[in-house]
């Protein structure tokens, strides 16, 4: 019962974060802040969803697989965001400042 609830909370939080990320992607003014919204929320939201699913599966091979997926995403996701940001900076895209046209 508790596990059901814990799983539910984790999944709901994860979904909420992912929605927040999407909203940020849509609403933020420039490339860097959008990347921030997408990248940050994605990593945590994946972690929460995986955790929620692992609660559902219990201590089985499935949760080991889920953990592996999480571990790999934990490495790749930040690196991808970093590379995108780095590439944008190197190609001369300036961050947005207040009062300036985007």
């Amino acid at each position, binding site marked *: 019962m508790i596990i059901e609830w814990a799983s539910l909370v984790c999944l709901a939080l994860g979904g909420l974060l992912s929605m927040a990320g999407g909203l940020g992607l849509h609403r933020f003014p420039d490339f860097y802040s959008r990347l921030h919204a997408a990248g940050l929320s994605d990593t945590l939201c994946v972690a929460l969803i995986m955790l929620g699913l692992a609660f559902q599966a219990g201590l089985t091979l499935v949760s080991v697989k889920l953990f592996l997926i999480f571990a*790999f995403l934990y*490495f*790749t996701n930040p*690196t991808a965001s*970093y*590379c995108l940001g*780095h590439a944008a900076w190197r190609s001369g895209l300036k961050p947005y400042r207040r009062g300036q046209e985007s």
Partner: protein
Amino acid sequence: MRPDLLLKVLAKFLIPFILIFAFYVQFHGDFSPGGGFQAGVIISAAAVLYVLAFGLELAERGIPLRALQYLSSTGILLYTGVGVACLLKGGNFLDYSVLLDNDVAGQHLGIILIELGVGITVASTLTLIFFTFAHWSRHS
């Protein structure tokens, strides 16, 4: 393209895992979901990651374009070759049962060879496509 340290480290760490997973999908395909096409795509994903991290020159020193072309042809040849081997053994085209004395073993061998052919072709063709596009973008 100036390779990036962080990406290099990550790629070094990830590529072996990607390849292991690809081979798992390839050769475990008759017991669990998977098969040649999926494995080929995963292998070429590893190749793409390698190019992104270490640059096209280094990658082409490893697998030249010409070799990729040969590989993609070889894969198709393996596929049709198995089919024709079935014909020669007295069965219908792609009737793997006749490949070995035992029907089931023959089926097994047949499907593994066929999927291997598919895997080789898909991996080399997708890598070839990526390499060609990468070359193009550098020209213009």
